[in-house]
């Protein structure tokens, strides 16, 4: 594997070719152009969709401006989360400390927007100059009468996972503050869905049809008040395991609320998730409703999916996503449309995640942790991939080489979760793979290639 640095060899595995072993969940190699972000990014993506909270980034302008309106996370009401707030620290703040500016900025913004809570994110240099964010937040909280929560997300203090943990720590302080009277015994919180393109609304509708009350969305279309009541729910269902499993664990510790790992991507995992919830509540009628629901939804989407399946059968797919849990679902989703997954990787998977990927993929499939453009492009070529699934940073790699692409990251504007989402996914894959433009790209067309090299 010449595209990989020697130090990276242990983070690449080929299913069936060697006993499973995987180096992962460690810091990115310097100079390797990782596709990962940082602690701040992890915190920011998790908390971002809480729409009635103020999200203030304490640091120089970059961190705030690169995350402005970055996610396709919809809100049914307030849209404060779509704004970018920063203390825009200047040199003098770095020298003399930024606490005063932070205080004044918080007061100003809370007065202007009347948020239900405020999250204050620390960035790299805040950790270095030692601003006492806790103290400032406590003071403003007392003065303004809303929760003001510091999120310890200095970029260099680990990778995205550390950021998820920091976000969960901040949310833990909200949970337990609200009145939980009147919450049904059949109730749950949705963790780890971010309402991209309205997905959480679809999932909520499924639960409602099953007779289950959703207490809090964490965090898609999220509200501070709902999260404060989240401890009143009987169950936490956790998708996107990396990002919110920590919170589920804390809620188990603090309130004894059990949790289920679920996934809403692909027919199999979507149905299994609903069944698991019905099974948890041990209610016959609910289980019957759920079966009915699944049957009904499938009958709506399968005829069209079968059409795509016919066209896509045997095509090859590569997957590179943030969290490994989504990768499991995508492997299955591609099977549903008759496609073969030949490469799958993630930014932040754990050894267990990769072991499971190795178990569910075909022999020869490349499994990779924390990859980079050079590796990814070599995999696409080696496996002659027909479509690559990833995020914005992966898109130009695919397109430059003339490979179809499906955006499955948090910036996407298409609903890919739920049964309807599976249909959208099939449509999108079909729409990209079957486009006539590929016949003109050098990969498929020698003469065009020669022209491009002239």
């Amino acid at each position, binding site marked *: 594997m010449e595209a990989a640095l020697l130090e990276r060899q242990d983070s690449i595995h080929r299913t069936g070719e060697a006993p499973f072993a995987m180096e992962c969940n460690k810091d990115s190699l310097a100079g390797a152009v990782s596709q990962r972000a940082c602690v701040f990014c992890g915190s920011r993506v998790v908390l971002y969709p809480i729409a009635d909270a103020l999200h203030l980034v304490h640091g120089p302008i970059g961190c705030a401006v690169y995350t402005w309106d970055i996610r396709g996370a919809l809100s049914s009401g307030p849209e404060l989360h779509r704004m970018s707030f920063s*203390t825009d620290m200047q040199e003098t703040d770095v020298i003399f400390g930024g606490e005063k500016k932070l205080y004044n900025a918080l007061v100003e913004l809370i007065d202007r927007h009347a948020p239900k809570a405020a999250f204050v994110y620390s960035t790299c240099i805040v950790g*270095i100059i030692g601003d006492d964010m806790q103290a400032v937040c406590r003071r403003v909280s007392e003065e303004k009468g809303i929760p003001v929560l510091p999120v310890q997300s200095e970029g260099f203090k680990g990778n995205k996972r550390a950021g998820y943990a920091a976000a969960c720590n901040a949310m833990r302080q909200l949970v337990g503050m609200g009145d939980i009277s009147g919450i049904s015994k059949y109730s749950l919180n949705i963790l780890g869905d971010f309402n991209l393109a309205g997905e959480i609304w679809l999932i909520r509708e499924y639960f409602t049809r099953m007779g289950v009350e959703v207490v809090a969305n964490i965090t898609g279309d999220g509200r501070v008040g709902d999260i404060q009541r989240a401890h009143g729910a009987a169950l936490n269902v956790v998708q996107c395991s990396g990002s919110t499993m920590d919170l589920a664990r804390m809620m188990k510790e603090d309130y004894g609320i059990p949790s289920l790992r679920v996934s809403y991507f692909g027919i199999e995992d979507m149905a299994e998730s609903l069944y698991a919830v019905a099974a948890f509540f041990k209610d016959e009628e609910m289980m019957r409703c759920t079966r009915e629901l699944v049957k009904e939804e499938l009958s709506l989407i399968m005829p069209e999916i079968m059409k795509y399946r016919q066209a896509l059968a045997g095509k090859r797919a590569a997957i590179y996503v943030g969290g490994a849990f989504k990768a499991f679902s995508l492997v299955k989703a591609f099977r549903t449309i008759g496609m073969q997954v030949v490469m799958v990787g993630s930014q932040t998977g754990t050894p267990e995640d990769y072991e499971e990927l190795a178990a569910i993929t075909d022999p020869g499939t490349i499994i990779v942790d924390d990859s980079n453009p050079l590796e990814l492009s070599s995999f696409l070529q080696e496996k002659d991939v027909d479509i690559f699934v990833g995020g914005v940073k992966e898109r130009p790699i695919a397109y430059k080489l003339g490979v179809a692409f499906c955006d499955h990251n948090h910036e996407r504007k298409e609903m890919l979760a739920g049964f309807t989402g599976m249909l959208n996914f099939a449509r999108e894959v079909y729409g990209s793979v079957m486009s006539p433009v590929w016949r003109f790209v050098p990969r498929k067309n020698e003469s065009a290639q020669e022209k491009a090299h002239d």
Partner: protein
Amino acid sequence: MTKMVPQYVSTTNACKLCKPLGASLAFRGVEGAVPFLHGSQGCATYMRRYIISHFNEPIDIASSSLGEKNAVYGGGANLKLGLKNVTAKYNPALIGIATTCLTETIGDDVKRLLYEYRQEFMQDGGPLLVQVSTPSYSGTHMEGFHAAVRALVEQLTEAADPNGTVSILPGFLSAADLRSLKEMAGDWGLTATVLPDFSETLDGPALRDYPLIPKGGTKISDIRAMGGAKATVEFGYTLSDQLSGGKYLEKSYGVPLHRLGMPVGIRETDRFFEVLRDLSGNPMPEKYTLARGRLVDSLVDGHKYVFGKRAIVYGEEDLVIGLTSFLAEIGVQPVLCASGGTSGSFVAAIEKAVAGFGLEMPRVHEGMDFHEIGELAAELKPDFFLGHSKGYTLARGLGLPLIRVGFPIHDRMGGQRLLHIGYHGAQQLFDLIANTMIAVKQDSSEVGYSYM
């Protein structure tokens, strides 16, 4: 004319980006170069994402990926390891190393670290290492961009024999602008070095193989020879002398400097072409005489659609100055010129740009964010916004059209192909503005004529 505007402590929806992003773009415009950020992993990844969404091209920005220990004990080891790995993997001709707020704050002495690195690992050669200090807690991406250009010039040029070439330091233009600029110089019979030149590295053809480093960019040998050029042409009225590569070449090698505005619109392009005429000794090529003639002809044809319209222009200071100058030429009243930059010379340049056209002096504000622009917009009653994609939410909220120019264009195809400069660029801008005004009138008309 910096009138009263509420001075907020907080920044909401900033109208600027951070310094290392500008430096990364500039380094990307050098042949065989890899931009490298000395900081935590997130910086490089965020900037890549931001740049990719505009250019729709891969951009590899390496990072020293500092972790917690490095932040405490210094990032030197990671910087060196990162440089080693980038050298091994990319075999670059040059690595452009820009610092970040983290490494500036912990006080890494990059110059010394690079000296050590050269001693330890580069005895048998290796890439050129160019370093620039870009702490994001002062200035914007434009200061980072210019600082990187200045660093390239300072650290690569040497005294050279006169070579008859012309160096052009254009600042931050689109890929199409850069292609057009090179074509102009060539058409005038000049051999020009444009620095940086990402017209191909960030806007390349479809390929069979993923390039380690994309083709194109300013040749390092051409940068080296800048000390022997017969002149430097540098765009940007707000560019400070310390950040000016042209000033450095003038001071160090006596290369005459022509400081011009960005050649947007008729007068600024005329000025640029006068310089090209003087430098080449050639008359204006027919192609440009015709283009100018067509442009003027079209301005006549369409003048009624734009006259008296009110515009809010925002973005990088020098681009805003050029655009404002063009708006004045076509009878549009700029009502607000806003930038997140704080050069200190923005107001004076705008005054000059609109002088003599019977216009009101627009409100001009440095250090503005979109919240402040929005507050003013409510009272200024503009007809359209002229700027990059990030003004969309504001324009939409007011039900006004946004005419997209500059960087970033995140919500349309082809930001890299937008042409702003020269008569051809002015032509595109005029058609865009006139057609937008026509469309507004047509769409809001009860009749909806298909003739205008």
